[in-house]
């Protein structure tokens, strides 16, 4: 569906070796179903089926486009259980394989522990480029990708809306409040992709059938050479001390037009700093 070349540099030429792209993806509880928080830990209950985080679909799509000519996409993910439904979606879209770090010890991991685990897993794939979403839909910390970059000793570029690769470096159009910056960065590096910047392909019938036989390498924390005490609850440097319900919306203010309604509306918007 989205066959257009990614960047103004055009599609990958034969100037570099096969492009090995890692896309970090997260499997999350279906946002359409009611979410629940664990009463003790205040973390999201992640039982049952998990789906591919929508915000990751853009990264997968970008990775697939970059690797289309010569290369492949490897998904990297972690979960406290062995659930792979969300990964299957990414594999059905066209990723070649997946690495899932699945270990009960990962329960309670904070952003930095997550980054440590993912960085170790990514190292195994020896990527030319690591793509991640800017943030996950269920956690919203938005810090993991840059932590991964730091741990891997790679440069990172955030908020990409367009990525192109040539001659061993990546050129990124990086979204800003004013427009976008053009950034160039040597490979390998970590790039985070803004949601909505490409149209993720649908898994096709053949893609879904093929996904079943694609390899999903399931690893434990020990397999990665990490100490279980450095991840999960044990390794978490942060703690959720409390959760409160959002304030209920109060009744709206009714403006009866007595000739000055426009002024009162402007005043209201000014008060909200919207104008």
């Amino acid at each position, binding site marked *: 569906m989205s066959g257009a070349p990614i960047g103004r540099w055009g599609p990958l030429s034969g100037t570099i070796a096969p492009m090995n792209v890692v896309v970090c993806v997260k499997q999350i509880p279906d946002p359409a179903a009611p979410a629940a928080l664990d009463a003790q830990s205040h973390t999201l209950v992640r039982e049952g089926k998990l789906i591919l985080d*929508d915000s990751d679909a853009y990264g997968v799509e970008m990775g697939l486009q970059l690797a289309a000519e010569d290369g492949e996409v490897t998904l990297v993910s972690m979960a406290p259980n062995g659930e792979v439904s969300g990964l299957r*979606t990414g594999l059905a879209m066209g990723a070649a394989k997946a690495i899932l770090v699945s270990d009960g010890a990962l329960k309670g991991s904070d952003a930095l522990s997550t980054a440590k685990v993912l960085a170790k897993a990514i190292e195994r794939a020896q990527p030319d480029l690591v793509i991640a979403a800017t943030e996950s839909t269920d956690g919203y910390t938005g810090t993991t990708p840059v932590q991964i970059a730091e741990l891997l000793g790679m440069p990172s570029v955030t908020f990409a809306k367009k990525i192109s690769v040539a001659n061993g470096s990546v050129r990124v159009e990086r979204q800003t409040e004013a*427009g976008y910056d*053009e*950034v160039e960065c040597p490979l390998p590096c970590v790039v985070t992709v803004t949601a909505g*910047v490409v149209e993720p392909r649908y*898994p096709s*019938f053949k893609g*879904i*059938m093929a996904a079943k036989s694609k390899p999903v390498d399931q690893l434990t924390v020990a397999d990665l050479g990490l100490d279980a005490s450095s991840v999960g609850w044990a390794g978490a440097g942060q703690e959720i001390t409390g959760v409160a319900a959002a304030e209920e919306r109060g009744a709206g203010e009714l403006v009866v037009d007595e000739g000055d309604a426009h002024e009162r509306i402007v005043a209201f918007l000014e008060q909200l700093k919207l104008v």
Partner: protein
Amino acid sequence: MTAHPVTAHPVTAHPVTAQPVTAQPVDEGAETVRDAVDPGHTPVDRVLAALDAVGFPELQELPGWSEASPEMVADLLEGFAAFVAEEIVPLNAPGDREGSRLDPTSGRVHSPAGFAAAYQRYVAAGWPTVPFDEVHGGGGMPWSVGVAMQDILASANMALSLCPMLTQGAVELLARWGTPEQQARLLPKLVSGEWTGTMNLTEPDAGSDVGAVRTMARPAPGGAWRVSGTKIFITWGDHDLTDDTLHLVLARTPDAPPGTRGLSLFAVPARLHGAGGAGAGDAGGAGAAVGRNGVRCVSIEHKLGIHASPTCVMEFDSAEGELVGELHGGMRAMFTMMNAARLSVGVEGIALAERGYQAALAYACQRVQGRLPGDPSGRAVAIVEHPDVRRMLATMRASVDAARLVVYSTAHAMDVARRHPDARRRAEAAELVGFLVPLAKAWSTDLATDVTSLALQVHGGAGYIEETGVAQHYRDARITAIYEGTNGVQAIDLVQRKLGLGEGSAAATILQQVRERADQIRRDGHRDEAEALMRAAATWRHAADLLIDRRAHSPLDALAGATPFLTMTANLVGGWLLAGRLVASGTGAAAGGFGASGGSPRGASDRDRKVARFFLTQLLPRTDGLVHAVRGHVDDLVI
């Protein structure tokens, strides 16, 4: 590093895919559902539950279907539903408003905005291929999976779904009757959906009486045929979804015997292919199209519903065609696809009923009106809390669930009849298909009218206004009781041909299984439900014996009772299948005589069990009263 102003480079936000697909807002077992959301199509979990209940997992054991694991099929259907939610659902209401249009000068039909692009994406993703044999480029999945996909597609956009549905019929005909050369040349493009197919049977004076067909096919040099005549009610007879359309046309040949025995089947492509462009041997071939064949759409009908689906009057003027199957074998060929086509219409029935139910449930949860008696707070409540609204919703849900099990059981039996290694099992399944098809077609589509009407009722005055969308479901549903053999024709078929109570007949076997299931659920503590099932079975037995007797001695009286008898029969079968939810898990409910036992291997939810109880104790007994109509005589029918 250059900074660009934002105005010069607007960022286009693309909609996020797959968000509300399997929205399951309902708190299982809760007394009141409070926040239902209308997903716009049959939810995947409902489809999977029905497949599971009719014994889908056993198909995986049959030759060639090892890939069809329940997990794989769940992935497949979820992927398909995500596509449908994003690409097909949004076209439904606008397609109804815009409708397909005929350009009278070119004779070409233009589908509503967005339809062609959506159809092409559907083809590009490989979805049309799923239930066809791999040898013709198909996905090699059981027909049951195709039925599940139709359920999702037709609920999202019935008008669009008709196009691939008819193509399926063309594929089935050619796969059964085409020569190996014809199959190799024509099937891959039909299977992929790059071409569509149409069925050209009806003429102004040949409707239910197909034998009156007057369209003529005359032999031309080189083994070709020239087809001339006028066909009406040709669904998607012309359109802009694809480059080409293959018309399958029933026509009479010179010197043919009168009636249906003189009809032959011809394949007539909309465009001429091949280097010469003239030889019928090239018709539909993969060669470059060189011009249009002598067939065109001369008008399209203005209908109650399915506005986006062009219903064409097709004029064949010495159009090039080729014979499919034997000369004078046209009706026999048509019969081979009839069961699947009738089942497809039954699927449309449950799909639209489901759509009405989903819309009504969501509306009832959101619409606040009135107070509950005895509620000291005096607060206004969502209408879903009003008992009478709940009765409507409960009736809708139980009806859809029961009819879906009948439809999916039929598909399942078709699959068993096709691939089971044991010839006896194949024969039993084929007989079951014959018995179930009139029920699956007529009952589901009668219920579609009832249930979409209730959906409108739940919406109150808003339902009568087009903007809420439920009026469209009601209008779209109405045709399903008419086409592909009217429901009256289905009832006649059941009474005259399908009903037999002898040893090994489908009806006798079902009766036996009803008794076994009633015993089972009685043992599991569902005494009232077991009694309701047994009482319905006894009444049905009485009616069936009466009709079998009358069939021989007073056939008009037998036919006068056909429609109420079909309704009784379908309710009994639906009740039997739903009762599977009441069988305690782990008691080996599945694997009945036909594999269509309606067990609950994965365990029904508490809500599912309540739906079954409601059907058995409140809806099923209503059909006891129909026995009086069956007992009546044709002379009682005063008009």
